[in-house]
């Protein structure tokens, strides 16, 4: 028998107590793993969002504030003014209206220049783009799925039949359930050639987007406002920081609660095995060996917890997160964190009971009834 095997056997002599400790530490590990997966998932969707759209920032009317797809409009000639600001490579307007679409009395219809679609955060998954000023639309995948529509079907918008020529996906929830067509067609439906909702702006290579946005703000800030992804990034960043902080907070809680639980379990175990520890001393085991044994047993419990907790955490996350619209991503660092915490808890939880065992005089231990 190896020393390791001896250590591994010991914690399971008191099955209920071991299971109770494992459950306790498991819960901590599950939360750490699940939260880690969700945080990572948010980071990656967030990065997708930032990098998918070709636009560096968008422009909206002053009064719409930060509601990017509000119904407030700005004058169509802003597009040319913005395009002429130094540092701007391209500026394309979009026009967002609410109108009757298919069976819906009201849905979002977005008009954009076919050449400007690469600035919007959409990517075609099926079919092709609409042609300019044609009665053609592309549908957000969510809208298409919800309404059982596919490429080749037709869709009635404001009384007119449109051909569905493509399906797109987007990371932008404002546009996921929408319908796109050319901006001219939207102007025609709305009977308003002079208004637009927003302008997508792409800056020249090598220009800093924030600098160009600041430039536009200082020139036209009285009438329009820029919404940069940099701002979104800051908001998102602080949310992620909060998630990370709570993950560490829960880790700390797991260390404290799990540590107390394991100290209790191991103290009971040492107490019950008083005579046995006396025997180990009598046969010549050093204090270091007895310490290693008790801390080792504590580590066996916490490492088993970490393994079970990681598996449950991942499974639970993969099952539950999609229901909440989250897609968790598991990277090795999450499990490293979980195991480091398990090991810390194991060592902390084992040391105090181990020191009790070591201090026990052998004669007292052997006299113990």
């Amino acid at each position, binding site marked *: *028998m190896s*020393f390791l095997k*001896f250590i591994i056997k010991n914690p399971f002599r008191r099955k209920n107590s071991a299971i109770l400790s494992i459950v306790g530490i498991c819960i901590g590990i599950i939360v750490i793993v699940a939260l880690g997966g969700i945080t990572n998932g948010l980071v990656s969707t967030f990065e997708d969002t930032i990098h998918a759209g070709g636009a560096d920032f968008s422009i909206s009317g002053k009064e719409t504030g930060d509601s990017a797809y509000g119904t407030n409009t700005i004058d169509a000639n802003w597009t040319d003014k913005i395009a002429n600001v130094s540092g701007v490579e391209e500026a394309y307007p979009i026009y967002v209206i609410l109108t009757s679409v298919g069976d819906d009395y009201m849905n979002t219809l977005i008009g954009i220049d076919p050449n400007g679609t690469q600035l919007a955060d959409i990517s075609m998954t099926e079919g092709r783009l609409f042609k300019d000023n044609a009665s053609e639309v592309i549908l957000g995948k969510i809208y298409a799925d919800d309404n059982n529509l596919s490429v080749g079907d037709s869709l009635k918008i404001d009384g007119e039949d449109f051909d569905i020529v493509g399906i797109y996906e987007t990371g932008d929830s404002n546009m996921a359930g929408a319908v796109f067509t050319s901006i001219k067609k939207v102007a025609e439906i709305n009977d308003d050639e002079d208004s637009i909702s927003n302008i997508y702006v792409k800056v020249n290579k090598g220009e800093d987007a924030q600098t160009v946005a600041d430039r536009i703000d200082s020139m036209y800030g009285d009438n329009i406002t820029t919404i940069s992804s940099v701002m979104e990034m800051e908001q998102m960043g602080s949310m992620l920081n909060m998630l990370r902080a709570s993950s560490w907070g829960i880790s700390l809680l797991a260390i404290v609660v799990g540590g107390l639980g394991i100290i209790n379990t191991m103290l009971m175990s040492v107490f019950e095995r008083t005579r046995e520890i006396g025997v180990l*001393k009598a*046969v*010549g*085991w050093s204090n270091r060996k007895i310490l290693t044994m008790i801390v080792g047993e504590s580590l066996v419990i916490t490492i088993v917890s970490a393994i079970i907790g990681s598996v449950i955490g991942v499974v639970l996350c993969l099952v539950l997160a999609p229901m909440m619209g989250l897609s968790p991503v598991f990277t090795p660092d999450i499990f490293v964190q979980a195991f480091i915490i398990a090991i810390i808890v194991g060592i902390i939880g084992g040391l105090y009971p181990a020191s009790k065992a070591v201090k026990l005089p052998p004669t007292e231990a052997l006299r113990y009834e």
Partner: protein
Amino acid sequence: MSNVVEINNLMKSYENGHIKALNGIDLTIWEGEFVSIIGPSGSGKSTLLNMLGALDLPDSGSINVAGYDLTSNKKLNEFRAKKIGFVFQLHNLIPNLSVVENIEIPMFTSNLSNSEMRSKALSLLEQVGLKDKASQKPSKLSGGERQRVAIARALANDPSIILADEPTGSLDSKTSNKILKLLIDLHKSNNVTLIIVTHDMDVARLADRIIEVLDGQLVNTSDDSLLENKIDVE
């Protein structure tokens, strides 16, 4: 013959000196000797045995066993591991380990490999006649069998001395005789010094020498007269 135990004016008290468990013991034991320690309850027999096995430190006096000075805290683990085999009144086996694994427990202090430990433990089990019970749990054994396992465990590291504190105290007389015979046989065949604490005069008389303890002191007994009374167990 050289002496394996040399004790001079050994003192040990408990409860802040109110209980003088050992009150000036002088004792020499020869290598390979079989000594029994007798005396009334509370006279200090176990205390003396614990001192011999370095389970406790004396207050004063000198004690040297198998070349180790046991008045200081140094190397006591090494001493217990290499020189001493304990047999207690209760077997004190570890319940979740098999018989053979229990015998391997003291060998964790040596640098034997796992397979060397196993084969040595099995040969010890053979010596105590329990080879067929190697993979049993102690709870499946009779009291006498458990005590035989405990004896095998005491021999695990080839000790110079076996210290047995009432090793048959919890056994019936028939089983008790078997265990004693086993201890004496092993003492002879392995040339190991055997020191047994007992209440039983019949057991005590089997020894080469009887030491009587009274109120923490040794009573002068004539070795010769006792040796004459020695009964042969065979």
